[in-house]
C-alpha cells in the first residue's frame, strides 16, 4: 500500500491543476472572508460580536468547497480523459487498492489545505472586524468545522469523478449536489419537505462549518448525515470501478 501512496502522491503533486485548485481554495476562503468582514465592519457602528465575526470570516467555504471538489474530480477523471487509468490499473490491478490510495493521498492533501485556508481566512477576517472579546475555543472549533466540511466536499468530488469518469459531467454533478440543489430543497413544502431539506447534502454538512443546528440536526449529526451521502457515493463508485471495463 505504501508503494501506491507514494505513486499517487507523485501523481497529484506533479500536475498544475493541483496547484491551481488548491490556490483557488485558499484564495476563495481568504478573499471572500475578507470581503464580508470588511463589509460587516463598514456597516456596523460599534463592536462586532465574536460569533458574527467568526461566521463572516468563513463564508468562503461555500465556494471553496467547489474548488476542492473540482480537484477531487480531476484526481481520477483526468486519468479517464487521457487513458492513463489503464496504465494505473496495469500497475495496480487491485482496483480497490488503487482507489484507496487515491482517496488517502487526496484526503490528506485536502485536509492540510483546508486547515491552512480556514485558519488564514479566520485570521484575516478577525484582523478586519476586531471583535472585542474572543474565546480561543470558539475560533479553533470554527476552523476545525470548516476544515472538515471542505475536506468532505473534496472527497465527495473524488467519488463523483470515479462514478461519472468524465470531468465536466462530474463537476456538474458536484455543483448540483453541493451548491444548486440544497437551497432549492429548502423550498419544499410541509414538514416532510423541511426534513428532506435538512438532510440534503450540504444543508446537513454545512452545520459543522457554521456551528449551528437545523430543526432536525446539530453540527455533528449534520456532518454525519453528509458523510453518509459521501459514503454511499464512494461505495457506488467502488462497485462500478470493480465491474466496469477500464
Amino acid at each position, binding site marked *: 500500500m505504501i*508503494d501506491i501512496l507514494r505513486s499517487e502522491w507523485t501523481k497529484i503533486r*506533479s*500536475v498544475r491543476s493541483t496547484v491551481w485548485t488548491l490556490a483557488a481554495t485558499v484564495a476563495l476562503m481568504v478573499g471572500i472572508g475578507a470581503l464580508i468582514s470588511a463589509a460587516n465592519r463598514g456597516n456596523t457602528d460599534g463592536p462586532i460580536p465574536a460569533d458574527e465575526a467568526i461566521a463572516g470570516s468563513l463564508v468562503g467555504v461555500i465556494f471553496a468547497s467547489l474548488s476542492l471538489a473540482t480537484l477531487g474530480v480531476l484526481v481520477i477523471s483526468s486519468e479517464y480523459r487521457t487513458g*492513463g487509468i*489503464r496504465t494505473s490499473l496495469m500497475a495496480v490491478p*487491485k482496483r480497490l487498492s488503487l482507489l484507496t490510495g487515491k482517496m488517502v493521498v487526496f484526503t490528506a492533501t485536502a485536509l492540510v489545505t483546508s486547515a491552512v485556508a480556514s485558519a488564514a481566512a479566520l485570521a484575516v477576517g478577525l484582523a478586519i472586524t476586531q471583535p472585542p472579546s474572543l474565546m480561543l475555543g470558539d475560533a479553533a472549533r470554527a476552523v476545525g468545522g470548516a476544515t472538515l466540511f471542505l475536506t468532505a466536499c473534496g472527497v465527495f468530488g473524488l467519488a463523483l469523478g470515479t462514478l461519472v469518469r468524465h470531468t465536466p459531467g462530474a463537476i456538474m454533478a458536484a455543483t448540483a449536489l453541493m451548491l444548486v440543489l440544497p437551497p432549492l430543497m429548502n423550498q419544499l413544502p410541509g414538514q416532510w419537505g423541511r426534513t428532506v431539506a435538512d438532510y440534503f447534502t450540504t444543508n446537513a454538512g454545512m452545520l459543522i462549518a457554521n456551528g449551528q443546528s437545523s430543526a432536525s440536526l446539530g453540527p455533528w449529526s449534520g456532518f454525519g448525515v453528509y458523510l453518509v451521502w459521501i459514503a454511499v457515493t464512494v461505495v457506488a463508485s467502488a462497485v462500478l470501478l470493480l465491474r466496469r471495463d477500464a
Partner: protein
Amino acid sequence: MTAIRATNLSKRYGGTVAVADLSFDVEPGQVTGFLGPNGAGKSTTMRMILGLDRPSGGSVLVDGRPYGELRHPLRKVGALLDAKAVHGGRSARNHLLAIAQSNGIPAGRVSEVLELVGLREVAKRRVGGFSLGMAQRLGIAATLLGDPEILLFDEPVNGLDPDGILWIRTLMRKLAAEGRTVFVSSHLMSEMAQTADHLIVIGKGRLIADTSVQEFIGRSSQGYVRVRSPRLAEVAELVKVGELHPDHLRVTAMSTLEIGTLTARAGLPLEELTFVQPSLEAAYMELTKDSLEFSS
C-alpha cells in the same frame, strides 16, 4: 513455461462479439505477432490479458496466473497499449516515477530507461508537447521499467516515421533474443514479416492461424509463374493450364523451364517469365478475406 495462455477466451459487448472462443499460447524467446484486420479483436484480447477488460467467457493466464493476482505486475509484464494515453501536464520523469513507485521499482531505474529510449534530454519537459515518436519512446520506457520477462505491444509502429519503426523493430528482436516473451499486435502483415517468428492470426475475434511465419506462407498460398508475351493468346493456347489475365498469363501447374521450353519450340516471343514467390501479404489477405469487418 508458457508466458501467456488464453483458453476459450470470449468477449461480448451487448450483442456484438469481439472475441470468440480464442485459445492460444505465447512462448518466450521469440517475437509472436498477433495479426488481424482492424476490428478483429486484437486490442480487446490484449486488454483481457492485462486484466483491464473482464472476459465474457474463458480465461487468460500470464505466467500461470491471472494478471490481477501478480504482486508487482510491472516486474513481470510490460505493456504498451496507447502511447498517447498519458497526462500531458506531467513531465516524462514524473510520469515514469509514479509508475515505478507503484511497483516498488527504485527511482534510479527511471533515469536508466529514459537513457535507454533516448529521452534523457527531455525528461523534465511536459509530455503534452511530445511528438508521437517521443510519446512512443516514453511508452516503451514505461514498459521496460520493471525489467519484465513478458512484453506486450499494441500496434507499436502506427503513425511512426521509418526511423522509429526500425528502432522498435530492432528493440523487439533484441528483447526476444534475451529470452523474453514479445507479443506484438499489428494489422500490417509486412511489418510482422520483418519482426515476428511466430504468428497468431485472428479475424472477427476467432483464431485463423497459429503457426510459424514460414509455415504460414507455405500453407495459405502457392507461388505461380507469370508469363507475358506480345502474343499472349497463342501462349495461353499452347500452355493450356494457365489462367489468362488481360496483360499476363498465370500458371501454377508448370515450372518456368517447362513453359520456356514449350514456347521456344513454338517460336513464341516472351516478354517475361517469372516465378512469383507467395508473399506474406498475399497469404494474409487470402486467410483474412472472409473475416474483414467491413469489406469494400
